């Protein structure tokens, strides 16, 4: 049995492809940089900063001071006067859900928002 595509079929393929490419251009780009935030919890209070705005903060907790650096969509603790400096050795984090913790100072730095929970199943 021979199957012949009608001229309109090619139009359908072209339209769907065009829509897919357009949506790719329109939706994919902003989604990748979707508003992720840095939440810093110290002394039981939390402060939220956008991940996209570079800044350097001094955060104090339990007598220790951490230097938190937000730059180019990543967060790191560049300096700390706490004894073990695990927070500094954690390095940089950038993905939603990642954390830097400084136990001696009781400071928690988390990345929230963004695309971490886009894993869904559509029925």
């Amino acid at each position, binding site marked *: 049995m021979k199957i012949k595509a*009608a001229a309109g079929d090619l*139009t359908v393929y072209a339209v769907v492809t065009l829509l897919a490419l357009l949506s790719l251009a329109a939706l994919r780009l902003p*989604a990748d940089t979707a508003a992720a935030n840095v939440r810093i919890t110290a002394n039981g209070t939390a402060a939220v900063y956008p991940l996209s705005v570079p800044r350097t903060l001094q955060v104090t907790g339990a007598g220790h001071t951490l230097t938190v650096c937000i730059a180019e969509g990543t967060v790191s603790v560049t300096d700390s006067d706490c004894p073990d400096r695990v927070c500094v050795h954690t390095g940089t984090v950038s993905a939603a859900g990642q954390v830097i913790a400084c136990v001696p100072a009781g400071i928690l730095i988390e990345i929230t928002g963004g695309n971490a929970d886009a894993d869904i199943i559509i029925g």
Partner: protein
Amino acid sequence: MRTSSSDETARRTAFRGLLLCLALIFSYLEAQLPLAVIPIPGVKLGFANLVVSFAAYVCGMKTAAAVSLLRVCITSLLFGSPTTFWFSVAGAALTLCVLALLRHLAPHAVSPLGVSVACAAAHNAGQLAAAAVLLSPAVAAYLPVLLFAGMAMGTVTGLLLTVLLRAIPPTVKDAFRRGTAL
């Protein structure tokens, strides 16, 4: 032999019930397919849509709409959740709109292949629109993947639909459409 009109009505009802059952069985079987077969969530073969398109070609849009919407209600009651119900309704509704538009505006320019591709893309887009409203607008980023997937799966079901529409003898089609005796 001349048959009475009440016989035809009964047969027509029975044949349309048959189509609904087929759509239900296909939905159920597809839900049982492990994700390993098609590793992208939300991507399905769409055999239930095959039945709906078949109904549109053989019986008309009213039957297609009835089969599609009843299938959605019944599968959601049996296997789904309130969330998946809205996904399915949105997908089915958009599919029916596209199906009706293509059948009415361009009945000869677009073959069953093109109709299936358009329906599959519409179905995925409709489901995603519901997901964007109910879950998070961020899922819209998934649209390109689902449109391309719809194109691929629509091609498969479209080829099957073309073969089916040609292979099924006119007497059987008449039985489905008007309830004539086989």
